[in-house]
C-alpha cells in the first residue's frame, strides 16, 4: 500500500488550540494492541523517525507557529528529546538567567509522569487551561514548533495584529527556517498528496500563513487545502468604558481587514479553502455561538469551541485519509471547486444522534431540522444547487432499520430499500437537496471522546452518544458525527457581506497597515478582486 502523505501547517494561537484537540484525537485513537480494525491510515499524517538516543518515534508531520510566551510547559524542541545540557563553553563567567518554571496542571503532570489511567480521572480542565499546550497529549518532532521571538504572546504593547506584519515576518529569517523545515518534511515523503494549512485569519498570522502558502505554491506543485479560522471570542468583545469601546471597534476593523486580505489571497493561491468559526457571524464580532443539541459550550472558552472545529476537521479528513487510498485531497478539492469557486462552507453535526430505541430510518424520516449546522461564518448553507461531500461516522449498520419481520410501518418508508447507512444518507440528501450532487463517505468508527476532550455533553446521552431512553446517566465515550463540505451559489452572500462590511472601513483608520507597507492602491485592488471573486458564484449553472 502506498501512503499519500499530508503535511499539516498551523499558524496562530487559536488554530493551535484546534490543533491540540486534533492531534489528541489522532493519538488517543491509536491502537497498540493490533486488534482493532482501523479505517484510517495514520501514516498519512504521521511520520516514523528516530530520536537522538536511537528510540523509534512516531510524530505528527506538522509545523506550527506561535508567539513567544505561548508555550508555557512545552519546550520549543517538542518535548521528545531530553535537553543535553553539557556544552563546550569553558567561558570564564557564565551567568544563568532562569525563568521560573510555570505551574503544570494536574493533567500535564499526569502525562509527564506516564499515568496510564487518564481516562478514569476527572480533571477540571476548564479552569486549568491557559494555552493550548495545557491539554496537549502528543509530543512533537524537534522541528515542529516555531516560535516567533519578535512578538510577545498577549502583549498589548507590540501586538501582532495585522496581516502586513505577518507578511514582513515571512520574508525574514523565520520564513527561511520555516521553509527549510517544510522542505525537510517533503523530502522524506515518497508521494505527498498535499498541504493542509490552518491559520488564524484575524491577526498577523494571516500574513505569515499566506506568505507561506504562496511559497509552497511556487515551490511544490501539490494541492493546498486551507482552513482560515476565526476564534470564537476575543477578549475585547464586551467593552465597558468609552475608551475600551473605541479600542474594540478599531480591533474589530483590523480583524475584518485581515480576514478580507486572507480570503482574497487564498482565492489566488490555494486549491480549496473553507473559513471556520463557531460564532455565527465571524465579523465584526464572532457573534452568537452556533448551537449543537446536547452540547453546552462556552464561546469564551477556546478549549471548548476549538474542540468542535477539530472534530469537524478530523471527520472531513476521513475521506482522504482512508486506508483504501481511493480519494486524495486533490480529488476532494477538484470536486468542490468547479467554476473557480475555491471557497466552500463546512458543516458539523455533533453528536449526530437519535434515541437509542430508534432506528436511523425513523429518525431521518421524522426529523424536520437540518441534521448539521454551518460552521462557516456569516454563511447559511442552502438546501439546493449544491455540491457537497458528506462524512458520517459512528452509526452502526444495526441501527439502520428494523429487520423485516419487526419493521411494521418502516416498510412504508421508501428508504427501507436501502441496505446500508451510506445508501440511506444518499437517499436522504437526494430527497432534501434539489438539483444537488452529494457524495457520502461512511466511517464505521465514531468520534472517540477521550480525556482531554471537553466534557460538555448533555447527560441525556448514553455511552455511545445516542439519546438515553431510560433514566440512567452514563459517561459519553464516543459519539456519531456528521460533517460536510458544501459549495454553491449560496456562498455569494457571504462574500458580498464581507466585501460590504470591509468597504465601510476608511483606509485612513488603517495607518498601522500603511506603516507596515500596505499601499492604498493595492488595498483597493484587493477589495475589487473580492467582488470579482464573488462573480464566480453567481452564474447560473445546471447539473
Amino acid at each position, binding site marked *: 500500500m502506498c501512503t499519500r502523505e499530508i503535511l499539516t501547517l498551523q499558524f496562530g494561537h487559536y488554530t493551535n488550540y484546534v490543533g491540540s484537540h486534533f492531534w489528541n484525537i489522532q493519538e488517543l485513537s491509536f491502537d497498540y494492541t493490533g486488534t482493532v480494525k482501523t479505517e484510517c491510515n495514520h501514516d498519512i499524517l504521521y511520520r516514523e523517525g528516530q530520536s537522538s538516543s536511537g528510540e523509534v518515534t512516531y510524530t505528527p508531520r506538522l509545523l506550527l507557529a506561535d508567539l513567544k510566551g505561548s508555550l508555557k510547559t512545552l519546550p520549543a524542541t517538542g518535548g521528545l528529546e531530553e535537553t543535553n545540557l553539557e*556544552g*563546550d563553553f569553558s567561558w570564564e563567567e557564565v551567568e544563568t538567567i532562569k525563568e521560573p518554571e510555570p505551574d503544570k496542571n494536574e493533567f500535564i503532570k499526569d502525562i509527564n509522569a506516564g499515568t496510564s489511567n487518564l481516562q478514569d480521572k476527572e480533571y477540571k480542565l476548564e479552569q486549568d487551561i491557559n494555552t493550548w499546550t495545557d491539554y496537549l497529549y502528543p509530543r512533537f518532532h524537534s522541528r515542529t514548533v516555531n516560535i516567533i521571538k519578535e512578538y510577545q504572546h498577549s502583549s498589548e504593547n507590540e501586538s501582532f495584529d495585522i496581516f502586513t506584519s505577518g507578511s514582513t515576518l515571512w520574508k525574514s529569517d523565520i520564513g527561511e527556517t520555516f521553509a527549510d523545515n517544510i522542505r*525537510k518534511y517533503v523530502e522524506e515523503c515518497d508521494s505527498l498528496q498535499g498541504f493542509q494549512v490552518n491559520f488564524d485569519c484575524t491577526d498577523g498570522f494571516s500574513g505569515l500563513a499566506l506568505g507561506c502558502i504562496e511559497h509552497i505554491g511556487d515551490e511544490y506543485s501539490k494541492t493546498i487545502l486551507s482552513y482560515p479560522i476565526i476564534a470564537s471570542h476575543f477578549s475585547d468583545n464586551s467593552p465597558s468604558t468609552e475608551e475600551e469601546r473605541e479600542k474594540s471597534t478599531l480591533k474589530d476593523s483590523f480583524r475584518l481587514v485581515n480576514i478580507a486580505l486572507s480570503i482574497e489571497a487564498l482565492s489566488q493561491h490555494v486549491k480549496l479553502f473553507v473559513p471556520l468559526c463557531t460564532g455565527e457571524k465571524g465579523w465584526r464580532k464572532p457573534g452568537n455561538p452556533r448551537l449543537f443539541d446536547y452540547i453546552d459550550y462556552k464561546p469564551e472558552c477556546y478549549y471548548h469551541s476549538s474542540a468542535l472545529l477539530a472534530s469537524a476537521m478530523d471527520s472531513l479528513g476521513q475521506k482522504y485519509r482512508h486506508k483504501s487510498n481511493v480519494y486524495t485531497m486533490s480529488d476532494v478539492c477538484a470536486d468542490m471547486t468547479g467554476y473557480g469557486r475555491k471557497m466552500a462552507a463546512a458543516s458539523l453535526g455533533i453528536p449526530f444522534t437519535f434515541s437509542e430505541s430508534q432506528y436511523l430510518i425513523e429518525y431521518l424520516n421524522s426529523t424536520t431540522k437540518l441534521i448539521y449546522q454551518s460552521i462557516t461564518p456569516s454563511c447559511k448553507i442552502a438546501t439546493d444547487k449544491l455540491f457537497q461531500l458528506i462524512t458520517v461516522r459512528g452509526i452502526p449498520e444495526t441501527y439502520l432499520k428494523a429487520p423485516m419481520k419487526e419493521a411494521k410501518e418502516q416498510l412504508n418508508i421508501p428508504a427501507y430499500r436501502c441496505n446500508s447507512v451510506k445508501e440511506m444518507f444518499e437517499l436522504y440528501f437526494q430527497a432534501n437537496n434539489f438539483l444537488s450532487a452529494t457524495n457520502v463517505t461512511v466511517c464505521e468508527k465514531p468520534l472517540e471522546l477521550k480525556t482531554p476532550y471537553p466534557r460538555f455533553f448533555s447527560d441525556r446521552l448514553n455511552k455511545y452518544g445516542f439519546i438515553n431512553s431510560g433514566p440512567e446517566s452514563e459517561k459519553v465515550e464516543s459519539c456519531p458525527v456528521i460533517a460536510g463540505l458544501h459549495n454553491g451559489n449560496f456562498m455569494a452572500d457571504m462574500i458580498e457581506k464581507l466585501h460590504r462590511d470591509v468597504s465601510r472601513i476608511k483606509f485612513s483608520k488603517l495607518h498601522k497597515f500603511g506603516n507596515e507597507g500596505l499601499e492604498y492602491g493595492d488595498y483597493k485592488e484587493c477589495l475589487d478582486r473580492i467582488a470579482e471573486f464573488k462573480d464566480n458564484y453567481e452564474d447560473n449553472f445546471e447539473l
Partner: protein
Amino acid sequence: MAAISLLNPKAEFARAAQALAVNITAAKGIQDVMKTNLGPKGTMKMLVSGAGDIKITKDGNVLLHEMQIQHPTASLIARASTAQDDATGDGTTSTVLLIGELLKQADIYISEGLHPRIITEGFDVARNKALEVLESMKIPIEIKRENLIDITRTALKTKVHPSLAEVLTDACVDSVLAIRVEGKPVDLHMVELMEMQHKTATETTLIKGLVLDHGARHPDMPKRVENAYILTCNVSLEYEKTEVNSGFFYKSAEDREKLIAAEREFIDQRVKKIVALKKKLCDGTDKSFVVINQKGIDPLSLDVLAKEGIIALRRAKRRNMERLALACGGIAMNSVDDLTEECLGYAGLVYEHILGEEKYTFVEDCKNPQSVTILIKGPNKHTLTQIKDAVRDGLRAINNAIEDKCLVPGAAAFEVKANNELLKFKDTVKGKLRLGIQAYAEALLVIPKTLAVNSGYDAQDTIVKLQEESRLNPDPIGLDLSTGEAIKPIDLGIYDNYIVKKQILNSCSVIASNLLLVDEIMRAGMSSLKG
C-alpha cells in the same frame, strides 16, 4: 525570558519632564543589564526558559530580543541595536552602552537647567568631529589572508572561547577567500553553514564543497562514489497523481488506468534521458553519476536510477542549486532534454553520512569551489546555535573589512583618542554648545571603562592611564585586558571594523537625541520612530 520591568509602559501618561526622566532611567536599566557583556572578558549569559529551552549568548542584540521588553524606550533602543546588527553584524552592545551613557551625561547638565535642545546640538557637532577622528585612524589594508586573520580573531574572541575562536578564525577567513572573486562583492550566502548534532564531537571544519542535509532515498544506491559527474536539476521525476477519482462523476477503472499510464510514461521518459547520458559518459570508465534535484523523485524513478548505480537526491534546497553550480561547475538544468556533458559539474568524492534519523551528503574535492561549507558539530542545539551565531559574526567582520578596505585599532583606542580630541576641540567652541561636546566626549569613555571593569580593573585608574599615554604618544593607545595597562592595539593585533564604529557613532547620536527631545517625540507619536 527574564523580564526587565523597568517602568510603567504607558508613555502617553508621562508628561514631558517626567518622560525624559523615564527615558533616562529606562536606558540606564538596559545599560546595566548589557554592560557585563562587553569585550572578550564579558560575561556569557545562559538563558533558560520555564520549559527548559536554553539559549547561550554574549551578543547584545540577541540578548535584547530574548528578553521581554515592555517599555517603549527600551524597545526603541532595541531597534537601534537591531539596525546596527542588520547593517554591520557587530557593535550591538556598544550601541546600547553608548546610548545609555549619552543620556546619563546629558542628564547631569539638564538637571542643572540646560535645555535638551542645546545638548543635542552639541551632540551633533561632536559626532561630526568624532567621525573625523575615526577617519584619521583608518588603517588601509590589502585583501590578504594575514590582514583578515586579526580582525576575525578579535571579533570571535568576544563570542567564544579563545581555543575555539582560533579554529573558527581559520575556517571563516579561508571560506571567504575561497568564494571571493576579485572585483566583485562577496556573497556570504555562498558559504553554507551546516549544523550536525553529534553526541561527543565538538568541531568545526571547512569543507571545500557542499554538505547537503539529506541523502539518497533508495537502499540500493551507492553510499560513496569517486570521480563523479554532478547533474543539478529542477525537474520533477515524480508522478503527480492528478484528480483521477471524483465523488460525483464516474470514471471507469479503465479510464483511470489510462490516465495514470499516460502520465507515468511522461516521467519515465525523463528518467530514461538521464540514464542515457550516464551510460554514454560513465559506462566502461571509472566515473560515476550523481543527480541532485530540486523537485521530487518518486520510488519508481529512484528504482530505475539505483539500478544504474546513480546516486539521486531529491528536494534540494533552492539556494543549493546555485551553490552546487558554483562549487562543482555545470549548470542547474530546468529540463532534461538536450542534456550534454557541459551541463554537468564535477566532484572528486560524494558520500553519505548518517547520524540518527538525519542523513548528510558530502560533495567534496571540487576543482575550484566558489561555494563552500562550514560544518559545525556540537552536542546539542544550543551549542550549535551559539557557534553558528559566532561564525556568522566572523564572516560579517571579514566582509566588512573587505568592503571598507581598512581597519581601525581596537581595545578602545578610538574612544580614548576621540575623547582626547573632542576635549581639545571643545575649547575652540564658544557658548553652551561646548557642554554638549563635553558630554559626548565623556560618554565615549563608557567603552574603555566597561572593558576595564569587566576584566576586574578600576575604571577611573584605567582612564587616567589611557588618557595620559594617549596624550604623550602619537600612536593609537588601547587597553590590555590581561594587564590593565596601556598598549598599542596594533602590536597585539586587536582591530575593529571601521563601518561598525561609524554606524555606532551615527545611530547612537540620533537615538539619544530623540530620547532627549522627548516632548517633541510625544507629539509626533511613537509610531513614527520605527526603524
